[in-house]
């Protein structure tokens, strides 16, 4: 299965639960700040996303939308 995610950067609070739980390593930290003062995560284009939505399931701040192709 192939999928992709959208990260709403303004909502992200840098908790990194998505990174920890993503089975594919498709999410990674970044160093830019958002208006809340957090550094939202970003997708790691080098790894694939399977659209499993584990990241979204764990994201406390509803910052991730998941799609499958």
């Amino acid at each position, binding site marked *: 299965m192939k999928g992709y995610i959208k990260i709403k950067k303004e909502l992200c609070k840098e908790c990194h639960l998505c990174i920890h739980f993503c089975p594919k390593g498709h999410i990674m930290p970044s160093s830019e*700040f958002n208006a*809340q*003062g957090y550094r939202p995560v970003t997708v790691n284009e080098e790894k694939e996303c399977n659209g499993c939505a584990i990241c979204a399931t764990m994201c406390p701040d509803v910052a991730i939308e998941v799609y499958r192709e």
Partner: protein
Amino acid sequence: MMTKAFFSGFGGQGVLMMGISLATAAMNKGLHVTYLPAYGAEMRGGTANCTVAMADEEIASPVASAPDYLVVMNSPSLFSFQNKVTAGGTIFINSSIVEARPIRQDVKTICIPCADIAHELGNTRTANVVMMGAFIRESNIVSPDIYLKTLETIMGSRKKSLAEINRKAFTAGYDHAGA
């Protein structure tokens, strides 16, 4: 003469510690002081800030509607608080983290890359002490000596090496501000 300083940043940056150490040092110098932390639902995980008032007479209100000094340790604080500062006042910015600069034209701005300096000194957690070095030099409210002695007492029970680290951090900030 009354001086008020406002410290702001994330929780965890040691912002309240900056205020307490300044207030204590000023007290040790013989000034009247008050220290007022902000508290609220928003404090958890979010921003932290506090106000120190120092004067040679009794202090009425510990609230600073127009502080003489604003210390900004993160970006949101700059946006939130820059308008508070009194005209002619000074804003200290932790320029390692805060990229923006004040829009105010009637204040003096001092940028200290204190996170970077602290990092170089090998202890990122002393960024706040670096900033205090700059602050003490600029503000001249208490002597570096009194401040450092106070800081040592406050840290008290903890190990000696810490005092050394803090002294270094302080001096780095002090020197940077003078440069």
